[in-house]
């Protein structure tokens, strides 16, 4: 918070316009953007997808994609306009004076070179005389990687996502740049890892005084990290100011709407649904994948993705499975829809899902539907959306062409889309609209249970809020039950009736929303809740207990397996793993 240092800005963006060349002439992606960045401060550029925030950062790095150019204004670093520098002059600046980290650390690291080689190469390219090995090791130590000497010899795939992002940060900060641009640095990471990376960035900034531009869509991250905020919408700056002012008194309607849409995590209080009959019963299901090895291709190890998990979903409730990536929550959804074989009993709406999954009957298919994470991937791009929504009816031979079309129009109306759009193709819709199409498709067969696998995770917060509203509305009107799978504790707190927390293929805590959020018992549940960024800059967060870097593996030799976690009831159906 030393933005008041009496010096000029490190980086000064004035009236920046970035345009893409199209057949009808240049179209601006960013227009008239101005801001100053001072040493030691963190400026957050916040906005939803398509707001031009990433293009701004790429312009500052002179890494704009082909066809996109800076067409006006300037980006000055110490008085030099980066937009007008030649590529060769820029190469000397990039990395040494202005560095960048990206969203996905796996794709930013070269998979065939060791961490040490990549780090020292980056250092040597700017300072050929330096003792690159020593500097690289110091950089790894500064980002608090355990066993830095060993990490130097490892390859990117041997590290976890959070460790890789720390390597990226080490690489970016090794040359002590004045400016660090972090483009959604924690979006691809689990929420507890996100906390650790954000804490690290803040500590490093305090030590080095690097100015950080943090680009994010997550207002929680903004509240936690920013000194000042720039809110962007479709290429223009909507509002700028100190973070406390933006959150306390947002002046513009867009900022207000953006902040209102952020799911806020409460303590889980709220009406508790009356106990109803069971719609889905899952008893001791396990999903294991074989790993073959050796000369003869025998099964040597198994991935224990899901290990003897049991739970029930009641009529008309939203049951959430929550946990971090790799905990097996999506595997359960895939087993329930027959996409992967399983062992154990899955009884959905009175139909037993066969263990091989494939031979599930049509009655089961009608009663249970799934909504996927990425609506763009779940809709065949070569089909008209009307045909896609009608397809379940065709498959189950319901009605004739005319009545199906009528039904599709009604479904479009139901999910808040115009029935006139049914002859378009999926790519002509926005992400939120596409997810509505997926929901309409799931509704076509009037299912009793909808499995929503991270169904709102890929959407912007404002869109996410509206899709969640739609899901809640459908539940109230049609009495549908949901199995809601998510990594986002705030979303889960907002829509769930009951929750199960999963860790390494097993449930470690389950109970009603009030029990889980009001009285979390298992240390992992507490960690998950504490790690959620709170969209309130005045919030003082308790220090996060650091866990070891070692990722516990679900891979076991044949014959061995994880110990089954025993859950004990601590009252009112709140069941917790005894440590």
């Amino acid at each position, binding site marked *: 918070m030393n933005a008041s240092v009496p010096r000029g800005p490190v980086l000064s963006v004035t009236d920046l316009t970035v345009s893409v060349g199209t057949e009808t002439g240049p179209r601006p992606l960013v227009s008239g953007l101005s801001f100053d960045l001072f040493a030691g401060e963190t400026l957050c550029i916040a906005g939803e997808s398509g707001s031009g925030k990433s293009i701004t950062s790429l312009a500052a790095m002179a890494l704009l994609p082909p066809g996109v150019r800076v067409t006006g204004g300037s980006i000055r670093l110490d008085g030099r306009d980066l937009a007008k520098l030649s590529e060769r002059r820029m190469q000397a600046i990039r990395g040494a004076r202005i560095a960048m980290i990206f969203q996905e650390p796996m794709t930013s690291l070269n998979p065939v070179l060791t961490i040490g080689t990549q780090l020292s190469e980056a250092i040597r390219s700017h300072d050929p005389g330096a003792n690159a090995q020593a500097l690289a090791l110091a950089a790894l130590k500064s980002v608090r990687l355990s066993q830095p000497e060993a990490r130097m010899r490892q390859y990117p795939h041997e590290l976890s996502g959070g460790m890789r992002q720390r390597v990226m940060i080490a690489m970016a900060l090794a040359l002590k740049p004045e400016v660090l641009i972090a483009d959604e640095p924690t979006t691809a990471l689990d929420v507890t890892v996100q906390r650790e990376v954000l804490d690290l960035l803040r500590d490093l900034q305090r030590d080095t005084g690097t100015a950080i531009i943090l680009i994010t869509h997550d207002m929680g991250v903004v509240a936690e990290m920013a000194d000042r905020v720039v809110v962007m919408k479709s290429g223009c700056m909507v509002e700028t100011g100190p973070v406390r002012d933006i959150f306390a008194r947002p002046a513009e309607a867009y900022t207000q709407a953006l902040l209102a849409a952020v799911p806020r995590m409460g303590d889980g209080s709220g009406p508790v649904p009356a106990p109803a009959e069971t719609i889905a019963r899952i008893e001791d299901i396990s999903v294991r994948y074989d790993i073959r090895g050796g000369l003869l291709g025998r099964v040597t190890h198994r991935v224990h993705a899901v290990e003897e998990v049991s739970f029930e979903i009641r009529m008309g409730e939203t049951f959430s499975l929550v946990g971090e990536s790799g905990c097996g929550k999506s595997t359960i959804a*895939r087993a329930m829809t027959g996409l992967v074989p399983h062992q154990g009993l899955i009884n959905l709406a009175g139909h037993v899902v066969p263990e091989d999954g494939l031979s599930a009957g049509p009655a089961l*298919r009608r009663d249970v539907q799934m909504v996927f*994470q990425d609506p763009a991937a*779940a*809709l065949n791009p*070569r089909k008209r959306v009307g045909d896609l929504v009608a397809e379940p009816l065709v498959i189950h031979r319901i009605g004739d062409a005319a009545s199906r079309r009528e039904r599709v129009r009604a479904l479009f109306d139901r999910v808040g889309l115009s029935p006139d759009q049914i002859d378009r*193709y999926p*790519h002509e819709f926005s992400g939120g609209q596409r997810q509505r199409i997926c929901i309409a498709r799931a509704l076509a067969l009037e299912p009793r249970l909808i499995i929503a696998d991270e169904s709102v995770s890929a959407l912007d917060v404002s869109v996410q809020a509206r899709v969640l509203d739609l899901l809640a509305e459908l539940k109230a009107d049609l009495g549908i039950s949901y199995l809601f799978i998510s990594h986002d504790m705030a979303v889960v707190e907002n829509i769930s009736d009951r929750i199960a927390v999963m860790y390494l293929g097993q449930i470690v805590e389950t109970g009603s929303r009030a029990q889980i959020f009001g009285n979390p018992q298992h240390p992992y549940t507490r960690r998950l809740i504490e790690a959620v960024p709170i969209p309130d800059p005045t919030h003082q967060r308790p220090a996060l207990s650091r866990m070891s870097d070692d990722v516990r593996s679900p891979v076991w030799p044949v014959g061995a397996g994880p110990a089954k976690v025993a859950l004990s009831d601590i009252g009112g159906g709140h069941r917790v793993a005894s440590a």
Partner: protein
Amino acid sequence: MSGAPFVIAASAPAERGALTRLLRRPLALLGLVLIALVVGAAIAAPWLATYPPDQQNFDGLTLEGAPMPPGGPWLLGTDLLGRDLYSRLLYGARTSLLIGIIANGIAVGVGTLVGLTAGWLRGWVGTVLMRFTDLMMAFPALLLAICLAAIFRPSLWIVALVIALVNWVQTARIVYTETTALAERDFIAAERTLGASSLRILWHHLLPHLWPTIIVWATLGISTTVLLEATLSYLGIGVQPPTASWGNIIFENQTYFQSAPWLVFIPGAAILVLALAFNLVGDALREVMDPTQRGQR
């Protein structure tokens, strides 16, 4: 025979107006016109030809016994036996089109079927099919052709069969790879959760994504099959003389390449034009059938 209709019927499942959009592309139109010209010439060969194609004309050779250059009664000159090149080219179009479209169509069809089945079913069926494909790929094509020709009496149909047997492997491999990748996509999983049958998923959701690949291989295959036929003819196991094909015109006359280059260049150009025409149409078809490319009508 299921191969050829595959390629040609490609625009049928797409909606009304696909043909109109195809015709609006100048390059596609050029390709279609060229194909129509070649097909028309092949059909109308008896009326267009100035001489019977197999007739050795006494005045068709110079006194030294060399072929006549183009000009006079010989529109495109004569070949080494004094036959009229123009007439042979017209009749040769029949053989070459038959080989290029039918043999190639069968090859692409078989390849698609094998690749799709192996990629969709995986497991031991997939392994057996793909190892068999690898075996066929490693097996010398000409040796196979010679064996087959030794068993059956050489004829146009045997040649077509041999070419189809040799050429399906590349398509099978590529279709297999693409099918395995597509089968992992979410929209295929979504279909399965709806209860769609495998056949329905394959036909309505997988195949449309494979059309671009299939079309590219089908158009590329036309020139290779025409030339493969020529090789077989050269070895004496292809189309039997005196029947003309574009490939065997080149091979018969290649000894005169120095003194009478037109004998090689003219049929060569014919093959080139045919392959180019199919490529142009194939390219355009691919774009027309992809709804995400439809912004620029």
